[in-house]
Each structure stands twice: as C-alpha cells, then as structure tokens.
C-alpha cells in the first residue's frame, strides 16, 4: 500500500495530467453530495500510455529529460505520418509512440534531412501498442520521425508521441 502511494506521488510529480486524473478518480469514490472538482484538463489515455512507458528512462544516473510538448493524431492501418523535428548533435533523444488498441503494432523510425533512415535503437514493451526508439544524431539539423501502423488490425488508431533528451 505504501509502495503504491509512493509510486503515485512520483507519477504526480512527473506528469501533472496524472494529478488531474487522480483528483478526479478520488472524488468519484467520495460522497456524491460533495462538490465535484474542477477538471483542469482532459486526460489523454494514449499520451498517458506513452508517459508510463517513458517512466523508467526519466530516472537513474543519466535520466532523459522529458519535453512537455508532443504530437497526436489519427492514423489508418498501413499508413504513415512524418513528424519534422530539429535535433542537436551530442544529445541523445528518445521517442515514445502509443496507440489506443492493445493489438495495434507500430513502427517508429528516424530519418535525416535527406530522407535516409538513421541508426536507432528500438525498444519494445509487453504491449505492442507502445514502442520507443533512441537516436544519437550524427549532425545537428532537421530530422523526420516516421510513425506507421501495421495492417494487423483494421480500425484507425489515435496516436500520441512524446520525446525526451539527455
């Protein structure tokens, strides 16, 4: 129980959206006559899945620093999207991509400004709808993150991508 509350405190500090979520959930268990809290922002469960996957890389000896910004959208099976981003040499970057359906299978790759795929380290998780990749850009400049949804499912998927640097 204590371990659970410690983990929750840790999560709250890292991700304010979890704070909002927990505030909302805790009230639902209270007397219904009490005033409902003001929910400040809509919880995005898909972004939360990406954040949860990121958690382990944001602590430790050389933690990644998570950016507050991110991207989201909808994608059909068999389609791809490109996200343009400026990366800086000597930094290491990690991207996390999540989609809604647990059966969704994703690709996440990085391309340089010429469209050439760059070497990156793919990281997978227990569930196939979350994937991550790490990259150390050889040069400072514009890069493209390519996300795609495999045709192993039929329905379009909402997606969310976040990133961190160190």
């Amino acid at each position, binding site marked *: 129980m204590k371990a659970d509350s410690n983990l929750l405190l840790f999560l709250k500090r890292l991700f*304010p959206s979890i704070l909002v979520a927990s505030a909302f959930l805790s009230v639902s268990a209270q007397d219904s006559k009490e005033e409902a809290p003001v929910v*400040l*922002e809509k919880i995005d469960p898909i972004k939360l899945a990406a954040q949860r996957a990121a958690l382990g890389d944001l602590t430790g000896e050389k933690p990644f*620093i*998570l*950016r*507050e*910004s*991110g*991207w*989201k*959208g909808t994608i059909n099976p068999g*389609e*791809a*999207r*490109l*996200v*343009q*981003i*400026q990366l*800086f*040499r*000597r*930094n290491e970057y990690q991207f996390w991509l999540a989609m809604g359906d647990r059966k969704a*299978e994703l*690709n996440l*790759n990085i*391309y340089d*400004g*010429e*469209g*050439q*795929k760059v070497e990156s380290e793919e990281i997978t998780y227990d569930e196939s709808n979350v994937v991550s990749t790490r990259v150390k850009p050889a*040069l*400072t*400049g*514009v890069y*493209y993150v*390519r996300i*795609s949804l*495999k*045709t*192993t499912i039929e329905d379009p998927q909402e997606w969310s991508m976040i*990133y961190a*640097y*160190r």
Partner: protein
Amino acid sequence: MIKQCLIGVLIAGGLQTGYAQSPDRINLSDPNLVIVDDSVIPIPLEIFASLDKLGAQNWSAQVEKRDIVLDTNRSRTAMLFGLIVSDGFIAVQAEDKDGVKRMGREVLRLASVLGISNSVESHANSIITHAGHGEWDVVRKELDRTRQTAINQMKQQQDEELVDLVSLGGWLGGTEALSAVLKENYTLEGSDLLNQIDLVKQLKSDFNSLPKRARRGKLFSQVEKTLTHLESLMISDASGSISEGKVIEISLSTKNLVNAIYES
C-alpha cells in the same frame, strides 16, 4: 513441389504485409507524404545540454536584468512572454536563483496581461519556490510546463497567433544566448548548434502567415528582416559547422532584435 513452394512464398509475403519494415529511404518531395502540422520548437536547455558536453560554458554572463515596460500590443507581449521564459532557462543553466525568481514574477505579470494567468500561476509560483531551494530539475520541468501551458491556453482561447509569437520569442532568446556564448568561445564543433536553417524557415513561414494586424509596425518589420537575415547565416559547411564570422553576425542580429522587443 514447385506449387507448394510458391504457396509458401505467397503466404510469407502476405504475412509480411502486416509486419512490413520501414523503408531505408523516403522521398521527402513525395506529395503523398503526410507531414504532421504541429511543430515543436526546441527549448534552450535542449541546445545548451549539447554545448555543455564540450565543456563548461559561462551561462552567468548571459543572465540579464531588463526592465519591461508593457503597452497594449499583445503581439509584442506574447514575444516578451517567450523571451522571459527563455531567460528563465538561461538562469537555470547558470543556477542563478535570483534571476529565476525574477523571471517567475515577470511570467506572472505577462500572463495576467495575456489573460492566461489562471493556467500559468501554479507553475510560476512553483518556479519561484523551487528556485529558492536550488531544485533545478524541478524548475527546469516547471519552465517547460509554463511555456506549454501558456500555449495550450492560448489555443483554447483561439489566440493562435500569440502561440507562434511565444514560440518565436522563446527561440530568439535561446539563440541570442547560444550565439553570444559561441562568439566568446568559438569552436567549430560547438558552432554546428546554429545549423538551424529549417527551423528558422519554419518560424519565418509561421510569422508571415500571421494576420497582418498581428504584425503591424516597425518592430514586426524588424522581426521579418532579422529572420530573413538569419536564414542566410544559418547555412553550415559540409561538416555542419558555421563560420566564426557568421556566429558573430547571428549574435549581433539576434541581440538587436531582442533589445528592440524589450525597448519598443
């Protein structure tokens, strides 16, 4: 036998459709490519982190105390908001408690003028409190949250043009500090951090897409001219480096524009 093999190949091919690997190369001029609209501008700390890997830098020299006189021009106030947040990032890098606290108070003042103080207040207060305790990791996170929360709130209030100006101000402040540090301690290796031509093109395009009412006046003509000038300067050589002369020019050009935004 041949038929069986063929069926085997066809089945394997069919399965591979679902597991298709990403291509080794993509044609970036392919009109069918879908590029996500949302742009994420790097924060100064992301760039400073790279430069610090080449050795300790004198970030303290970049912390400036400037008085802000506000007027009714919301576009200028939005750029100032971005500049102040980037000043906060510089002060964090320099671990300057007073500088960060001062910036936190200015954020509150500017947020109030922009009508976003309710959203930003808790972050700004957290910045002030944690800076006092020297908890730089928390301050760093809260600064990024301040910037993102302000942008989210502006989008919600349908102040889209202010979003681009906050981003522009933030980028400008970070680039001014970066180029000033590089100018003082020029290295070929470090200069590659100014290889941001695609980013400056994007910022210029965003700026030029703003409604004319949002960029009317002498200050905004200077913004456009400076971005055009920076576009011509942020071209690297084959190794990715930017010459010392160009770094000096970038430093002067960004400093002049930052001063103009503060003083106009």
